[in-house]
């Protein structure tokens, strides 16, 4: 009797690894002790800029706003030659078409949130339609939210199945799964949600919607990076990471890079596998880049606000 065997057996998610809060916070703070100077800083800033998902997720978003943001994505600061573009623009599904057109063949991807972002409180079929709509409009990437209510109720299979269904609806688009860690409460649960998402088919796991505080923190990101590492060793499959919200300064972003370098290493130090979900970070990075070049900080007025 031939029984189809899944290549990777999902584990019992009620028994995911324990995380010690004190230990995680200590380890995370150790990354911030690394001193990033000179060419290391210059290269780091370029990497950071290139990893940004420039984001606008507001009720007030319009075609005009999105177009302006797209221009910024391709031309972060024309006064500086030889700087990379950002990685992607992150918008609501209704804005995907506008963004896709504005970005053209620049290589900058369009990411769309979906699945009744940010709450995720909608029936599964609506979430699937939401996702398919975004993909049909041209989204290269889909940022979904998990059902935190079901997760807290212990219905891990529900959460798993939902992610798997959205993954299927994504087709060729890459799926980022937002755990909304600010609502999960403990690192143990962050780890559990990460494991569920990865086993269910996530291409990326992402901390936050940006609508809930706290959003991304270094300890939470560390827990997720370690989950990615364990999953990689177990399955050989790489999963990307996207901390989002709360990272607005270059120095902090460089600390995140240090963390990626020392936990996952070379293969993840690219925007294919690591992203920053941020809007104001880009200008701070640009300001630091100009400072490195000229030796002086310029006023914020020299950097475009989009």
């Amino acid at each position, binding site marked *: 009797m031939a029984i189809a065997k899944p290549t990777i057996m999902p584990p019992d998610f009620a028994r995911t*690894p*324990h*995380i*010690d809060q*004190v*230990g*995680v916070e*200590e*380890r995370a703070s150790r990354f911030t*002790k*690394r*001193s*990033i*100077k*000179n*060419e*290391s*800083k210059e*290269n*780091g800033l370029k*990497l950071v800029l290139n990893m940004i998902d420039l984001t606008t997720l507001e009720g007030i978003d319009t075609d005009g706003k999105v177009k302006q943001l797209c221009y910024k994505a391709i031309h972060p600061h024309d006064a500086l030659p030889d700087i990379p573009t950002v990685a992607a623009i992150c918008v609501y599904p209704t804005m995907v078409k506008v963004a896709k057109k504005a970005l053209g063949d620049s290589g900058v991807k369009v990411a769309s949130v979906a699945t009744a972002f940010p709450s995720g409180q909608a029936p599964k079929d609506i979430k699937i339609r939401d996702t398919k709509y975004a993909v049909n409009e041209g989204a290269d990437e889909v940022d979904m939210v998990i059902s935190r209510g079901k997760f807290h109720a212990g219905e891990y299979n529900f959460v798993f199945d939902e992610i798997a269904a959205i993954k299927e609806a994504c087709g060729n688009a890459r799926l980022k799964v937002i755990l909304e860690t600010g609502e999960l409460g403990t690192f143990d649960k962050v780890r559990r949600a990460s494991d569920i998402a990865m086993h269910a088919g996530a291409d990326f796991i992402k901390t936050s919607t940006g609508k809930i505080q706290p959003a991304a923190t270094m300890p939470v990101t560390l827990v997720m990076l*370690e989950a990615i*590492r364990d999953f*990689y*060793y177990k399955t*050989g499959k790489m999963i990307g990471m996207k901390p989002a919200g709360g990272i607005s300064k270059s120095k902090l972003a460089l600390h995140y*890079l240090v963390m990626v*370098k*020392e*936990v*996952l*290493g*070379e*293969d993840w*130090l690219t925007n294919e596998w690591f992203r920053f979900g941020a809007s104001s970070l880009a200008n701070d990075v640009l300001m630091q880049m100009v400072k490195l070049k000229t030796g002086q900080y310029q006023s914020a007025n020299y950097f475009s606000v989009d």
Partner: protein
Amino acid sequence: MAVTKKKTATKKSNTIKLKFDTSWTYAPAPESKSAATINKQYDLFINGEWQKPLSKKYFDTINPANEEKLSEVADANAADVDKAVKAATNAYEKSWKKMPAKERAKYIFRIARIMQEKARELAIIESLDGGKPIKESRDFDVPTAANHFFYYAGWADKLEYAFPNRTTEPLGVAAQIIPWNFPLLMAAWKIAPAIATGNTVVLKSAETTPLTALKLAEIIQEADLPPGVVNIITGAGATGAAMVNHPDVNKIAFTGSTDVGKIIQRAIASTDKKATLELGGKAANIIFEDAAIDQAVEGVINGIFFNQGHVCCAGSRLYVQESVAKEVIRKLKDRLESLIVGDPMDKNTDIGAINSKSQLDIINKYIGIGKKEGAEMYQSSCRLPSKGFFCRPTLFTNVAQSNRIAQEEIFGPVLAILTFRTEDEVIEKANNSPYGLSAGVWTDKGSKIFNMTKRMKAGVVWANTFNKFDPTSPFGGYKESGFGREGGLHGLLPYLNLKN
């Protein structure tokens, strides 16, 4: 006796490998040496002033990271020791004993504050002279040393509350001999409680790391401490022996090797000298299968590689429950790759230089012994500087309880990994050591922590953490790790007679 090496059967995990040698690297970030002043030559600090040694001899102290000479310091002989002890006796009788305790406290607070003001300079000198990473001397050694002075300054006029219904009386002159692994911090551990309780001190720093203690002498001078209350001298074993054997010394406080500790015990056996000995260790760090593994791994790394493993309470024996051994070892190996070994003055360095050539020889000897005993060695792939004394962080797996690398103190960045099955088994194995200074337990289960800590024969047991120090917390050993406690309220006791 050679155990045949087995090839790891897990081909899959061989093909999956994280690459930590990344294209994005850290540029050098050296701390500036110019923020510290080191004299060409140092005399002995006796009776509040710098005195030429009667021995007329000096010896070099070098930077272990590049083998260059930093300075030369006096080699005190028995006559110099006698002079220092006389100064201490005199200061004890004439001023320190009689001084109101709250006045004594003011001096000690002043020392602590000046140490904080000069923190950067002290950290730089500590790293230059001893080889430890500037990150550690800056963030751990110097602030903790200053905190010890602050803490014991607070006790000076409150001894009647420390020991209710008893009258306290200082012992007299304390001869204090400190090791090279935490030169300034050990000086603070020794001096602060001694003078807070009204004793006077002759302190000898270690041969290879005399400079921060001499810098502390300058601070003591600046604090205007009455002459002779603290005398700081330099020298090697013979100087220490002269201190121990001096008839006017009332108390010996020693931190160092168990061998020397035994010699001291013998020397004072027929005297009424009191002693505190803080000696070697071979701490067991125990990981249970229900532990938070990633944090436990980090704790193990911190436990054995902190200060190049030159820590008496280093977690040098790792006991890991067999069901998670493979995972833990893989994680340890990955973590080893992200440790930065090199110039102690670089702010990004995690593991600095081995303190001396002779210590490096000892470590290498043990690495040889481990290989010969059939244990499997794993070292990080880092490049070592061509000059200076360096050692790659090293793991040994497949270690047996009977291996010498599992029994003897190596005092370097070398971890012996053993496995176990049950709680009872691991307690028996952990306690199966002539030492008993510290231990660590990693489990998510609270009841297990209490059960383990109760049954472990170790002076300090850390649970889900390691190498945590605080002036308020007593530290000391069981068995051949010594006796007496330093730090906390307990640390006052070795410097006092209690009367009714």
